[in-house]
């Protein structure tokens, strides 16, 4: 009896958590459907639901180019970061070489680095190198700051892989390529995926580099563009338009979270979970 009661108690606590996580999201969604006087009606929900804000946002070059920049820059940074991190993590997990600890310590130190402390010199350097306000100018810092996370996540995963299975498969008659593709790749893929998701979230979320190292629509990513919405006068109601844009860029996050929930949790806590 008391077992069931406590189960229900924990489930109710779970409902509180879900409400906590969803309330602000529901609010910005609701705001994005408001129009005209509704925006300032001081109510949670609109009295009249409208898609106007979405139309406005998609008609705005400021937003569509920012969306294109964000998607392109984040995907490229993620891919390169994960590939480089995979090499490094493989070496750290499987090979014996001097300086391994140093690599890991460096990664940890960079993960703790205050990014804003670098924007001044980078601003100056990027201008003299001619990559200020370009995709490359953002991809490089994203790469540097996501590599530590990717390396740590991936080496934790690679450490758990039973590498002997590769030889076992070869003994059983598989070619080296088959052994790699059929045995190692499926074992390593979840780790690579996890690193990719965490890296993508970092790049997608970045604001500091986004506003400091861009000046125009050429490279400005969405978070930075959102901050400039208010300054533009061609929006009658920046509040609702910003909300609509905010909802659009939140959709990919929610889709990724829904599909890869297990991997993300494992990645954020890997190592701590094992023990």
């Amino acid at each position, binding site marked *: 009896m008391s077992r069931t009661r406590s189960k229900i108690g*924990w*489930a109710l606590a*779970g409902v509180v*958590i879900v409400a*906590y*996580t969803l309330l602000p999201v529901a*609010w*910005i969604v609701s*705001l994005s459907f408001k129009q005209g006087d509704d*925006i*300032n009606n*001081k109510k949670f929900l609109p009295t009249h639901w409208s898609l106007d804000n979405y139309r406005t946002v998609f008609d705005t070059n400021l937003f569509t180019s920012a969306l294109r920049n964000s998607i392109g820059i984040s995907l490229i940074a993620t891919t390169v*970061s994960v590939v*480089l991190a995979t*090499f*490094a993590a493989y*070496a750290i*997990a499987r*090979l*014996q*070489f001097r300086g391994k600890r140093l*690599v*890991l310590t460096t990664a940890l130190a*960079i*993960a*703790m*680095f*205050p990014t*804003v*402390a*670098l*924007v*001044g010199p980078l*601003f*100056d350097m990027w201008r003299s190198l001619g990559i200020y306000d370009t995709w490359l100018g953002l991809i490089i810092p994203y*790469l*540097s700051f996501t590599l530590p*996370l990717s390396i*740590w*996540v991936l*080496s*934790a995963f690679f*450490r758990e892989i039973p590498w002997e299975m590769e030889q076992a498969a070869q003994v059983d008659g598989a070619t080296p390529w088959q052994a790699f593709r059929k045995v190692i790749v499926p074992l390593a893929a979840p780790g690579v995926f996890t690193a990719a998701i965490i890296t993508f*979230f*970092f790049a997608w*979320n970045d*604001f*500091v580099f986004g506003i*400091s190292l861009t000046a125009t629509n050429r490279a400005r990513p969405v978070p930075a563009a959102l*901050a400039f919405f208010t300054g533009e006068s061609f929006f009658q109601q920046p509040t609702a338009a910003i*909300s609509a844009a*905010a909802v659009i860029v*939140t959709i990919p996050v929610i889709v990724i979270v829904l599909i890869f*929930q297990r991997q993300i949790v494992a*990645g*954020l*806590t890997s*190592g*701590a*979970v094992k023990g």
Partner: protein
Amino acid sequence: MATVTAQPEAGEGGRGARARSRAHLSERARDEQRLGWYLVAPAVIGMLAVTAYPLGRAVYLSLYNYRLTDPAAKEFVGLRNYGVVLTDSLWWQTVFTTVFITVVTVLVELVIGFAFAMVMYRIVFGRRTVRTAILIPYGIITVVAAYAWQYAFALDSGFVNEWFNLGDKAWFSNRWSALTVIILAEVWKTTPFISLLLLAGLVQVPEELQEAAKVDGATAWQRLWRVTVPNMKAAIMVALLFRTLDAYRIFDTIFIMTGGAEKTESVSFLTYRQTIVRTELGLGSAVSVLLFLSVVLIAVGFIKAFRVDLSRVRGD
């Protein structure tokens, strides 16, 4: 964003080679060493390119009076920029604001995060749903979260004043109420991260210890403080360290909500304003270096004071 993961085990690869003859070992070991370096080199270069060199450059620029709009007037001034910053009350005000936000945010989310971790650990019905939902604030763009909270409290569009009958309370025109909303938004966004780390620590606490304490007649409260918390100390300390450093860097939320008005400016925001907005690269670099040093100070202080052993997170 900070992530804590296991420190990979050092020195597994050499084990097989060790069994073989000495001559073979050194040759093999040398090959292995070289391959190891080749494989980590691109990542190490990638990490250092945008950190080590610019940091060195910031130190160099901080010794000059240098404004980007007037490069001809660049002049060596030694440590004078540091003197200017450290004797300015604005600097100390931003340090105070940042420390205040950091301490309150981290303490509040440690408590809420622990409660959330407990729920995620014990819950049976809806376990998956809760674990998925909790990732939403973690994944959402900080700027988006800041707008959502700002609009909720805003005088014109907000529903909070209406819901709680606060009339026309202008949250953002007073330092402390503005900081309250900033802290709320930060706590909302980052509690999931800390709760997942604490959950990971929680599952490490042996269930037998709980049972044994129960048999000995310990109350639930005693079990929490005498069994659970001491056994997950490493996880708590690492979560605290990472979140403290992360909270100390606060920038996005302040930029969106107040733009630093009403004395809500953080050290990161001051750095941005000096270097990018005012293009005072000399003075701004001095602020950058001080920001960097304070982060180092916090990290070292934490590791020394609480003896946080980062390699222990992996539990070996």
